[in-house]
């Protein structure tokens, strides 16, 4: 390998290993996400110019931090003046000493959690928190994020810029909240990570590379938070919930790429090690004695897995968990899923009564699973023409071609 190629591969490895830590460290010191990203990207550019000539440094992270700090000082001198600039320059000067004593990346203080809390701050628009985290901590570009969240790259780029401006201008702190407000603020972080995971999870056909990666990125973030906050049961609950869903990924499609519902999945295709990890996390969470949404979601996944493995036919545990979840969230989607569990416990007519009442909630009108659930329940009480119509609506709202084929198959199988 020539020197330029070696420089590039070293820079790539550092970016993969330490990007989030470096940005978080710089952003926390500069109190500015955009400036930290700019300084670091300039440092990477400088590395690609310098390392081929002078060789790769023994500690590339420290080299990058030192250069990024210098670029940061230039940036502050160019763009700011007055007292804030003086404070910034002071902080950056102190940062230099910290950087020069860093011997390896393990010694860089991990400020990623503080960065996540800044990104999910209540003052930041809820819709942009997940994209902001993915960009700030993982370095994903606006184009990749936009495509995962079904937004135009231009609009996503602008919203990310605005969010970073807000963090700087509003003076949002890069810190882990104090004990008394931690739980409330943590919800924002966990919700954003779950939103990123859900975007990756609902990828059409599981064939889109960008979207698949988002699932892995969200799992990484959830693992990071659970690792850094091991005494927060909801952080453990979220990771458990995501691992459960991920463990069944391969079973969700058959050899033809068609959608396979949970009740028909091949249990042997589930990732047993991942399920064990999820169960262990859930156990640790429950020992901490504070129940919450994500622990309940994970408990539900756990019940589904246990039911399929044991052949249990009594749905009482599922209905009980849904009751608790509904009381906590009031979400119409939870109410819909609860109705499906009730169909297993009390029959399809009892479930249809709930589903009919839910129709009054306008939020489910465009929700494909609502119509698919309704169709399946109608078919079970032999209301075939109504079931056919409900399937048609579900098919029209489906974004995933495999799900669309699945629904068309169910519709075609209805007796005429």
């Amino acid at each position, binding site marked *: 390998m020539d020197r330029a190629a070696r420089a590039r591969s070293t820079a790539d490895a550092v970016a993969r290993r330490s990007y989030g830590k470096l940005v978080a460290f710089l952003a926390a010191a500069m109190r500015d996400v955009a400036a930290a990203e700019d300084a670091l990207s300039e440092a990477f550019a400088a590395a690609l110019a310098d390392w081929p000539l002078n060789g790769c440094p023994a500690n590339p992270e420290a080299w990058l931090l030192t250069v990024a700090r210098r670029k940061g000082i230039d940036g502050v001198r160019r763009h700011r003046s007055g007292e804030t600039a003086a404070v910034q320059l002071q902080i950056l000067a102190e940062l230099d000493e910290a950087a020069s004593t860093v011997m390896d990346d393990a010694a860089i203080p991990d400020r990623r959690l503080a960065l996540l809390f800044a990104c999910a701050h209540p003052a930041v628009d809820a819709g942009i928190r997940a994209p902001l985290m993915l960009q700030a901590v993982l370095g994903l570009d606006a184009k990749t994020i936009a495509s995962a969240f*079904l937004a*135009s790259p231009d*609009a996503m780029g602008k919203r990310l810029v605005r969010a970073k401006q807000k963090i700087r201008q509003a003076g949002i702190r890069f810190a882990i909240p104090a004990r008394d407000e931690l739980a409330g603020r943590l919800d924002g972080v966990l919700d954003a990570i779950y939103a990123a995971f859900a975007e990756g999870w609902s990828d059409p056909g599981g064939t889109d590379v960008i979207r698949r990666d988002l699932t892995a990125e969200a799992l990484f973030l959830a693992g990071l938070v659970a690792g850094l906050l091991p005494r927060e049961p909801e952080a453990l609950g979220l990771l458990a919930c995501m691992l459960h869903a991920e463990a069944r990924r391969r079973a969700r499609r058959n050899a033809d790429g068609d959608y396979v519902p949970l009740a028909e999945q091949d249990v042997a295709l589930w990732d047993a090690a991942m399920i064990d990890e999820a169960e262990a996390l859930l156990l640790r969470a429950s020992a901490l004695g504070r129940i919450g949404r994500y622990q309940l979601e994970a408990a539900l996944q756990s019940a589904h897995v246990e039911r399929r493995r044991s052949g249990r036919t009594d749905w009482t545990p599922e209905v009980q968990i849904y009751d608790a979840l509904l009381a906590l969230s009031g979400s119409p989607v939870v109410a819909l899923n609860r109705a499906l569990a009730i169909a297993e416990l009390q029959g399809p007519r009892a479930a249809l009564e709930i589903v009919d009442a839910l129709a009054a909630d306008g939020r489910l009108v465009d929700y494909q699973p609502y119509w698919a659930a309704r169709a399946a329940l109608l078919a079970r009480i032999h209301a075939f023409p109504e079931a056919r119509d409900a399937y*048609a*609506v579900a*098919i*029209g709202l*489906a974004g995933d*071609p495999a799900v*669309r084929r699945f629904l068309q198959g169910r519709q075609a199988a209805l007796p005429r």
Partner: protein
Amino acid sequence: MQYLLMLYADESRWSQMTPAEQEQGVAAYGAYTQALKTAGVLLGSNRLQGSATATTVHVADGKSQVLDGPYVDSKEQLAGYYLIDVPDLDAALAWTARCPGASHGTIEVRPVWSM
């Protein structure tokens, strides 16, 4: 705002499908069109005949040039369109992603120039 969803697709794929697959494909579009109608956002839509039926016209120096074939000769051709009225681009993209054409082809979304 009004948006035009232009559906581009590989035309040869259609002829390679079995009649059952074709029927399923048409039904999927029918269901999607109905969903747009039910949501009250559909202004118009049409499927086009294949690009082999296309003719292009260009007038230069007062003389009209008429050519056989599509304007751009590429594997993926304009196959149909939906004209929808939704609040913003994000809403238009959400509907675009649900269109069957988004999974077997590519859809270009353009806001209509409002006069």
